[in-house]
C-alpha cells in the first residue's frame, strides 16, 4: 500500500455518520420524500391503501355480527313465537359473517401484497440509483468512506426506506381506522364500557413504542458488539499461524470471552426489555377485559345490556389487541425510515466531484503526447498538504518514463492524475494538447490504463477478468494479452484453464500472478498511455524482463509510465524522473543519472549491493 493511501486511511471522514440525530423538521421532509417516492407507483399504492380501508371496515363488522348472533339466540327467552324469525336471523348473520371474513381476508391480501409490492418497486429503483451513484462517485469520496459503511447504507438503510410504505404508512392507515372507528363504535354503544374496553390502548401504545425504540437502539448496539466478536473470530482464524506461533490461544480466548460477554449481556438485556414489556401489555389488556366483563356483566344483570353486546365488546377487544401492539412497530418504522432515509439520501444527493463538463469533447489521440504542465496536487481530505508541486514533463508516443523516489514522494499520486482519478489543484495535464478536464471521462479512461499496485480481481473467471475492460473481446485477443503478461502458461496449467474462477471466492493467486493478470487486463484496453503503478514488485525479475520484452512491440504505439522502487524495473526507461516531496528533483537517462552522482546514484548503490555500507551512508547523508 502506498503511503498516500496511509495518509488517507488515517483520516476517515464521518460525512454520512453525522446525520444520526436528524431534527424533526428534517425527519419530516425525509418522510415526505419517501412518501412521494411511494406514490410514484400510484396504482399499487392506492390499491394498498384502499384495500386497507375496506379490510378494516370488514374486520370491524365481525364483532357486531357476532353480538347480533348471540342476541338472536336470546330472543326465545324473551318472547315466544319469534323462534323461526330468530333462526332466519341466525342464518343471515352467519352468512354475513362468512362473507365479511372472506372479504376481509381478500382485501387484507390485496393490502399486504400491494404495500409490499410498492416497497419492492421502491427498493428496485433505489438499488439502481445507489449502485449507479457508488460507481460514479470519485476516488476522493471512496478514500474518505469506509467501504463497510457504504455497504450498510446500500443494504440496511435502503431496507429501512423500502419498508416504510408497508410498515409505517399503510400500518398507520390501518391502525387509525381500526382504533378510531373501533373506538367510535364502542363508545357510541356504551360510553362507560367503551372507555373500559379502550383503557388498555394508551398504555399498550405507549409501552410498545418505548419498547420498540429501545429495542432498536439496543439492536444497533448489539450489532456493533457482534461485529467486534466477528472481527475477533475472523482475525483469529485468518491469523492462526501467528496465534500459534506466539502460543497465544489463551489470550485469544480471553479476547473472545470479553467480546462474547459484552454481546451476550446486551442480548439478555434485550430479552428482558422485550419480555417485560410484552407481559405488561398482555396483563393490561386482560385487566381491561376483566373490567369489561365485570361491569358489562352487571349491566346484563340489570337488563341495560344484552349478552350479545357484551360479546361484541369482548371480541372487539381481541381484534384491537394485535394492532395496538403494533403501534410500537409503526413508531419504530417511522423512526427507522427517517434515519435510514437521511443517510441514503445524503449518498444519493452527493455531488460527483469528477464528471464530464457540459461541453466535454471526446479525446482525440493523434500524436499521443502526454504533458504535465506545472501540476500541483493535494488530496481533498488534507488540502494544505501539497503532494505534488510544480510537476512538469512531457512524454511522446513510444517513450517510456520511469518514476522513482522515496515512499510518500508522490509517485503514485502522479500516476492517478492521468486518468483523472483526481483533479489537479493547479496546472494542467494534456494529451495532444487537449486538457483532460475538457474531455469525456469515458474517452479519457478508455485511452489510459493504470495497472495498480494492489489490483482488485473480480470473482469470476480468468477470462472475464482479463476482458474486464472490453467484455466483447475475441478469445484470441485475450490470449495474446495473457501471453504478453507472461500469464498464459500458468493459466494453461490450471485444470479449468481460462474458466478458472479467481478473486475473493475463487482460486487464490499469488501476488505476482495477480499483478500479471492485471497487466493482461490493462493490455486489453490498447491504451495510448499505460501506467504501471509499482505493479511489478511481486513479480520476479526474470518474468518481469520477459513481460518487458513482450511489450516492446506495443510500446512504440504509446506512452509508458513505470512507477517502481526496484530500479531494475525502470532502468531501461528513456527518461527517469526522481521524485522527492512532490517535486521532480532529478531527471535523465539511467546513465546520465548515475554520472550525476546524486540521489539516484545512492539508491542504485543501495539496491545493487545492499550489504555495502557505502550505500547506507550515501542515502542517509
Amino acid at each position, binding site marked *: 500500500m502506498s503511503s498516500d493511501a496511509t495518509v488517507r486511511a488515517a483520516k476517515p471522514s464521518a460525512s454520512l455518520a453525522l446525520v444520526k440525530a436528524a431534527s424533526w423538521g428534517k425527519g419530516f421532509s425525509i418522510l415526505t420524500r419517501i412518501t412521494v417516492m411511494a406514490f410514484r407507483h400510484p396504482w399499487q399504492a392506492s390499491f394498498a391503501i384502499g384495500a386497507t380501508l375496506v379490510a378494516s371496515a370488514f374486520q370491524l363488522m365481525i364483532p357486531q355480527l357476532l353480538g347480533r348472533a348471540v342476541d338472536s339466540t336470546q330472543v326465545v327467552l324473551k318472547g315466544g313465537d319469534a323462534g323461526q324469525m330468530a333462526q332466519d336471523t341466525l342464518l343471515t348473520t352467519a352468512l354475513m359473517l362468512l362473507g365479511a371474513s372472506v372479504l376481509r381476508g381478500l382485501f387484507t391480501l390485496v393490502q399486504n401484497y400491494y404495500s409490499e409490492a410498492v416497497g419492492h418497486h421502491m427498493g428496485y429503483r433505489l438499488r439502481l440509483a445507489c449502485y449507479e451513484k457508488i460507481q460514479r462517485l470519485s476516488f476522493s469520496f471512496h478514500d474518505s468512506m469506509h467501504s463497510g459503511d457504504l455497504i450498510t447504507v446500500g443494504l440496511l438503510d435502503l431496507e429501512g426506506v423500502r419498508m416504510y410504505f408497508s410498515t409505517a404508512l399503510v400500518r398507520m392507515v390501518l391502525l387509525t381506522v381500526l382504533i378510531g372507528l373501533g373506538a367510535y363504535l364502542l363508545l357510541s354503544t356504551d360510553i362507560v364500557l367503551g372507555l373500559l374496553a379502550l383503557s388498555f390502548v394508551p398504555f399498550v401504545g405507549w409501552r410498545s413504542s418505548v419498547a420498540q425504540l429501545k429495542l432498536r437502539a439496543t439492536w444497533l448496539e448489539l450489532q456493533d458488539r457482534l461485529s467486534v466478536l466477528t472481527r475477533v473470530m475472523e482475525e483469529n482464524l485468518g491469523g492462526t499461524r501467528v496465534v500459534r506461533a506466539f502460543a497465544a490461544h489463551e489470550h485469544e480466548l480471553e479476547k473472545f470471552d470479553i467480546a462474547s460477554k459484552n454481546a451476550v449481556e446486551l442480548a*439478555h438485556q434485550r430479552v428482558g426489555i422485550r419480555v*417485560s414489556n410484552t407481559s405488561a401489555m398482555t396483563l393490561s389488556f*386482560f385487566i381491561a377485559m376483566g373490567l369489561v366483563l365485570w361491569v358489562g356483566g352487571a349491566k346484563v344483570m340489570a337488563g341495560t345490556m344484552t349478552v350479545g353486546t357484551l*360479546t361484541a365488546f369482548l371480541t372487539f377487544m381481541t381484534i384491537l389487541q394485535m394492532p395496538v401492539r403494533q403501534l410500537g412497530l409503526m413508531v419504530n418504522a417511522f423512526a427507522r425510515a427517517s434515519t435510514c432515509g437521511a443517510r441514503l439520501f445524503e449518498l444519493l444527493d452527493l455531488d460527483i466531484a469528477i464528471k464530464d463538463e457540459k461541453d466535454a469533447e471526446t479525446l482525440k489521440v493523434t500524436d499521443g503526447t502526454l504533458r504535465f504542465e506545472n501540476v500541483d496536487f493535494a488530496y481533498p481530505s488534507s488540502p494544505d498538504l501539497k503532494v505534488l508541486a510544480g510537476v512538469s514533463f512531457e512524454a511522446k508516443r513510444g517513450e517510456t518514463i520511469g518514476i522513482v523516489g522515496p515512499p510518500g514522494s508522490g509517485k503514485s499520486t502522479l500516476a492517478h492524475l492521468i486518468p483523472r482519478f483526481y483533479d489537479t489543484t493547479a496546472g494542467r495535464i494534456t494529451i495532444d494538447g487537449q486538457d483532460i478536464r475538457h474531455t469525456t471521462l469515458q474517452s479519457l*479512461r478508455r485511452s489510459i490504463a493504470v495497472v495498480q499496485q494492489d489490483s482488485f480481481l473480480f470473482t469470476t473467471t480468468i477470462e472475464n477478468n482479463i476482458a474486464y475492460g472490453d467484455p466483447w473481446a475475441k478469445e484470441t485477443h485475450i490470449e495474446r494479452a495473457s501471453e504478453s503478461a507472461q500469464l498464459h502458461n500458468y493459466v494453461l496449467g490450471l485444470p479449468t484453464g481460462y474458466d478458472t474462477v479467481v478473486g475473493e471466492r475463487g482460486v487464490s493467486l499469488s501476488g505476482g500472478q495477480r499483478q500479471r493478470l492485471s497487466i493482461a*487486463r490493462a493490455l486489453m484496453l490498447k491504451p495510448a498511455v499505460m501506467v504501471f503503478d509499482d505493479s511489478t514488485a511481486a513479480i520476479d525479475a*526474470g518474468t518481469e524482463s520477459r513481460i518487458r520484452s513482450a511489450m516492446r512491440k506495443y510500446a512504440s504505439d504509446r506512452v509508458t509510465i513505470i512507477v517502481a522502487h526496484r530500479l531494475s524495473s525502470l532502468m531501461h526507461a528513456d527518461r527517469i524522473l526522481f521524485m522527492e516531496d512532490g517535486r521532480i528533483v532529478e531527471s535523465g537517462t539511467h546513465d546520465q543519472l548515475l554520472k550525476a552522482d546524486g540521489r539516484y546514484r545512492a539508491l542504485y548503490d543501495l539496491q545493487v549491493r545492499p550489504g555495502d555500507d557505502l550505500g547506507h551512508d550515501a542515502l542517509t547523508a
Partner: protein
Amino acid sequence: MAEELETERHDVRDDGRRPPRAVVGSHRIEEEIFGKLFDSNIVRRIWAFVHPYRSKIYWAVAAVLCFTAMQLAIPLIIRHAIDKGMQEGSLDHGVLTGSIIVFAVAILINFAASYAQEMLVGGVAEDVLFDIRRAMFSHLQRVSLSWMDKTEVGRLMSRLQGDVNSMQEFLETSVLSVGDITLLFGIVVVMLTLDFKLGLLTLSALPVLFIVRIFWLPRARKSFMAAHETNSIANGALAEAIHGVRAVQGMDRQAVNFMLYDDKARANLTTHLRAAKFAQVMVPIVDSLTGFAMALVIVVGGARVLNQALDVGVMVAFLFYIQRFFDPIRSLTLQYSVMQRAMASGQRLTEVLDVPVDIKDAPDAKTLSADMDGSVEFKNVVFGYNPKHPVLKNVSFRVNPGETVALVGPTGSGKSSCMSLIHRFYDVQQGEVLVGGHDVRDLTQDSLGRQIAMVLQEPFLFTGTVFENIRYHKADATRDEVIEAAKAVGAHDFIMRMADGYETVLGQRGGNLSLGQRQLISFARALVADAKILVLDEATANIDSYTEMLIQKALVKLLEGRTGLVIAHRLATIREADRIIVLQNGELIESGNHRELMKNDRLYSKLYNLNYSSFDDIPDDVVEEAAVEQAT
C-alpha cells in the same frame, strides 16, 4: 426466473455481437439448508450444550404449560360468568364477582407464566448460543494446521454465526412449540367436552387448513428461498461494486455493470413479488376458514341455544376458541422448517467439533524452561504434508546457541517446513526435532511457544492499537518495554508520526500501514517476546529500499544474543549469517558460511554469482539450470 431475464436481456442487446464476457457479483452456492427432520445423534450432541441449563428448561416448559392452561381457561371463565353469573334481573352478584376474581387470578398466573417462560427460554437460548460458539472457537485453536490450511475462513465463520444462530432459533421455538401443541390439543379437548357434536363440527375446519398448509409449504418455501437468494446475489454485486470501484472506474465499466446489475435487481424484484404472493395467499384462506367455523357455530350452535339445548356462554366460548385455534397450526408448520434447518446446521457444527486434534501435549510433557541453552537440532527428519510425498527427506543439522543460520533454497525446497517443525505446527514422520536438547514432542506446546518467537513473511497484525499489537505475545509488557522494542527496530519514529502514536488503532490486519511498516511492528512484537530462539521468514518483495534498510538494521538487533533461524531471501542477510544451510528438494545439499560456500563452487556460489540482489529475483529456470549444472 433469473435465467429468463438473462436471455431476455441478451435479446434486447442483440446488435449482432454476442453477449459480453461479463458478470457483476459472485454467487457462492449456498450450503444445504434443510436437513432431515430429526436426527437423534445431532439432538443428543446439542442437548449436551443445553444440559447445564436443564433446570431452567424444565421450569420454562412448566411455565409454558401453565401459560397454555390459562389461555384455555380464560374463555371458560367468561363462559361461566355469562351462563351462571348474568341472569337478567338477578340481584345475586356473587357468581359474577367470583368469576371476576377467578379471572383476575388467571390473568396474574398468565402474566407470571408468560414472563417466566419467555425470560427463561430467551435467556437460555442466548447462553447456549454463546456456549456452542465458544466450544467451537476454542476447538479451532487446537485443530491441526493442515486442516485449517485447507478450510476457508469464510466457511468457518458461517459455521460460527449462521449455523449457531439457527440452533438458537430452534431451541427457542421448540420450547414454545410445546405450548402450541398443548394449546391445540387443549382447545380440541375443551371444545369436545363442552359440546361434543358442535365441537366435532367446528373442528372440521382444522384438517382443511392442515392439508392446505402441507401443499402450500414446500412451494412457498421455494419462493422464499428464491427471494432470499436473489437478495444475496444483488447485495453481493453491490459489495463488489464498492470494493472494486477503482478498478471499475479505471476500466470504464460503469455502463456495462449497471446493465448487468439491473438484471440482478430485477430478478430480486420478481422473486420477492412472487414470494409476497405466496406469503399473503394464506391470509384469506385462514380468514375464510375462521369465518366458516364461526358461521357453523352460529347456525348450529345458535339453533341449539334457541332450543335451550345449549348455554349461550358455551357458544361465546366457542367463538373465542375459534379465533385462537389457527395460530398453533401456523407456528407448528413453521417449526417444521426451523427443525430441518437446525438439523442441517447441527450436522455442520458437530463436524467442526469432531475435527481431530492431531497435536496434543503428551501426558507427561515437560515444560521448556527459559534457561535452556537455545539450541535447535534436526535429526534425520522426514516430513510431508502428505506422508507419501515427503517435503523433507532425512534432514539433519544443528544450530548452536546464539548462532544465526540462514536457510536458503529455491521455492519448494522445504525451508518453510523446517520452520513449522521447530514450533511443532506439525509432527515429523521420522526422526526428531530437538529444542534445547528436548524432543519437541516431549514438551508442552505452551512452553515451547514461549521460547520461540516467530516472524512470518506476511506480517499479520490484529485490529487494536499499535501498543497492543507489539505486546501481543507478552500481555504484561510495560509501555517502556514496548517503546524500547519499537526504538530498537526503528519503528518508533513512524509510530510517533501517526495520529495517536502508540494508541493509533490499526485497521483490519494493519491495513493502514505499508508492508514494511507492518514488518517492523512484527519485529518489535518478536523483540518484546524476548524468546531464546528466533525463527524468521524474511519478506520477499514489495518493500522499498528505504524501509528495507531499516529492516536490515532491525534484524541485526533482533538476532542479538539469540539463536536465529532465518529463511533468507536477501543476500545481505545471507552473507551476515554465521552459517548458511542450502536446501534443495527437501535435502540438505550444502552448509557453511558465505566464504566457505563460495569456495565450494556449488549451487550457492552459482546463484550468488548471478548477481541478483535477492535470491527470489532469480527466475526459476535459471535456478534449475544452476542446479542441474551442479549435479553433473
